[in-house]
């Protein structure tokens, strides 16, 4: 049985590399005594594959992996068992049973969305708020060019077509609801910032860093990553309805 698992990577886990998160995840599965399948041989490993890797420094509420299981109980029970032996910074938030022949999560990723907030350091300098002003002007631009440097050449690419959505949003404390635009209410429980949905996956992949860099350069500013906090909210695939979360491929059990 193949399950698709949605999990978070928050807090100090932003300093843990993708490879180490994978190792962490596998140990947590063992602590939770979930009946995952193993490969054969002298060093058996769990049959599990992870979707889009996260760059170091970023957090996420929408990470996915697919795994084969020998037996399963139900979504709630498996989530509870995992989460009580895991750090609050990596919890499972959804488990769905994939239909036979479903493509693996890595190959179906089509987009991700992000919320960009100012970091504590970034808030100290009012100039950094300019990012949000620049973002509002995006629709006025014909294109958004970035310089791609490789060892051999430098080429300009237009990344605007890869930006599917961009707006100001204010999320509540656990990112379950939001309002547009800014509420202007002073509330530390809220997360307010720049929301963007970008192409992701193997065909077109746009990193939020690049978008911020391009927007800031319009304002004549250099991008310093430590002025901003980037959180991935969800990872999407494409179906007949358009872009839907990766977990839409299956049913809760």
């Amino acid at each position, binding site marked *: 049985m193949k399950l698709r698992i949605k999990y978070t990577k928050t807090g100090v886990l*932003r300093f843990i590399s993708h490879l180490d998160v994978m190792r962490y995840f596998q140990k947590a599965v063992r*602590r939770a005594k979930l009946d995952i399948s193993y490969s054969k041989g*002298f060093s058996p490993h769990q049959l599990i594959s992870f979707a889009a890797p996260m760059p170091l420094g970023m957090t996420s509420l929408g990470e996915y992996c697919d795994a084969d299981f020998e037996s399963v109980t139900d979504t709630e029970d498996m989530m509870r068992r995992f989460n009580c032996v895991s750090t609050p*910074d990596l919890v499972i938030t959804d488990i769905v049973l994939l239909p036979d022949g479903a493509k693996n999560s890595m190959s179906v990723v089509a987009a991700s969305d992000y919320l960009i907030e100012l970091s504590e350091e970034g808030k100290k300098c009012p100039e950094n708020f300019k990012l949000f002003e620049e973002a509002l002007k995006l629709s006025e631009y014909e294109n958004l060019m970035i310089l791609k440097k490789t060892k051999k050449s430098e080429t300009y690419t237009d990344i605007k077509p890869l930006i599917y959505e961009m707006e100001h949003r204010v999320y509540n404390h656990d990112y379950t609801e939001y309002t547009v635009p800014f509420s202007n209410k002073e509330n530390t429980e809220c997360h307010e910032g720049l929301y963007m949905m970008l192409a992701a996956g193997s065909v077109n992949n746009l990193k939020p860093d690049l978008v911020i860099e391009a927007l800031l350069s319009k304002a004549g500013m250099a991008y310093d990553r*430590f002025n901003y906090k980037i959180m991935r909210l969800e990872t999407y695939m494409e179906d007949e309805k358009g872009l839907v979360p990766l977990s839409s491929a299956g049913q809760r059990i």
Partner: protein
Amino acid sequence: MEKLALSDRILMSVEKPARYIGNEVNMIKKDISKVDIRFAMCFPDVYEIGMSYLGIQILYDMFNRREDTYCERVYSPWPDLDKKMREENIPLFTLETQEPVKTCDFLGITIQYEMCYTNILQVIDLSQIPMYAKDRKKGDTIVIGGGPCVYNPEPIADFFDMFYIGEGEISYDALLDLYKEYKYSDMTREDFLIKASQIDGIYVPSLYDVQYNEDGTIKSVKPLYESVPKTVKKVIVNDFNKTTYPMKPVVPYIRATQDRVVLEIMRGCIRGCRFCQAGMIYRPTRQKNVKLLKEYARTMLDNTGYEEISLSSLSSSDYTELQELIEFLMDEMRNNHVNISLPSLRIDAFSLDVMSKVQDVHKVSLTFAPEAGSQRLRNVINKGLTEEDIMNGAREAFKGGWSKVKLYFMLGLPTETDEDAEGIAELAERISEEYYDVLPKEERQGALMITASASYFVPKPFTPFQWAPMMMPEDYLKRAYHVKDTFNKQKNKKRLKFTYHDHEISILEGVFARGDRRLSKVIYDAYKAGAIFDAWTEFFDRDKYIEAFRKNNMDMYFYTAREREVSEVLPWDHIDSGVSKKFLIKEWERAREEKTTPNCRMQCQGCGVASFGGGVCFEAKN
């Protein structure tokens, strides 16, 4: 939101930021306003090395069982972070609370090898604690050292308030209780130190006066006060089944060197190899009950999620219930996809059978540690392994499908000659010939590869070789080249490989191992010149030490190249490991007579550790 001592900007600019963020699975969390004692426990090397060390896991668990105490961890910042902390004046912090180490009551440092001495200075310095114990006042963090190197802590004595001689399970409760009394009363620091020195196993170096002879050797080491004991005897656990053991060890996010559950099956070793300090200072041999170990194994695997378990001891083949334990682990674990990582086992039918079941014989190499190239020299060092043992083991292994063999040797052993050293190449050659003799062409799988590696012997305190001289640098090189040349003369030389260690590091290790208090200035000056991570060849800089010795008008070869008389007062004579000097002298004599000594189970040699009242000394009598 979590609290971190370092900003994202710093963390993202250094290698492996996960070294500094704590918050791992099974990390203990306590409210620091509700504890009396905060104990920062340090392994003075990088996180991945320090986290692999079992001793800290044991003490971390033990301390944190006390409600009034919070034990937190500290490791050496890697040079990239070290530089930033100095630039920005950031004090070293613990992983648990991310609070400065200097806000803790104790800084406990485990000292596993001599080449970490400058890292100890780095940790004290970055913690912003006064470097020398004499400059510390009431209210400053107490710096205490433990581990094998504290059997001769003299070269670093000036930096420590006290040392703990022996196994941590015994005297810490008394020390912490005394500390609490000191902390909450007007007891002076001097009074506290004197009272601490009366606790079993606690050595307070500042309470001893060292006098020297004109030739630089030690004249006397005497306590300053009558109430301070003349010698400090190590403390050990007698009933090894009743000690605490961490059932929920901390599981690092990043891959540590020891990335598995470690099951300590035995302490001490019955073998009595004359070069081996661990084999002497951890006497007597004590083992854990196999039933208990089975229970531990299950619980620890459940609590950590590790996929591998390894057995820890100095010589696992001597654990009397090994077969039962390994069969249990194999049965139990097969269903749970747990790998068993086998420790140094004697190569025989049983161990080969076990290994072939848990490892891919085509990938894994088989390890022998003959330590010396000739039987004569193996007798001198009392290494029980004979050439016949090695050949039998190799033959069985080749038949079982192995084709990679590793051999460990030492160069520069007492009485060693060029012929003994040549024996290393010749032994490797004979093993390779055995391979071709035993296996017909069609049965040879994979290419035969025999790798011999040699380190240089460093005489250690409390061993029969504590009086032995080391060689001069050029002689070490000559001997290594000689072995290399001999390898090149062998028929199967293409199947043989020889590597050897850096002799400069070994010489310094030798200086510190048997050094005295005057070396603290040298270590301090080398550190001030930038020496840290000396155990890492890429960071070790011999010139910094040469300069430090020159500056202090001291000769490093005084500590290494000289053969000591057995009558000489040794810098560690006021420490008592339980093994008598008489026994060590007898063994030193027998070594030079090329006579072997039977192991503890065959025949008690009356080494003195029976005075502790437990372990192998009483096995037959139970």
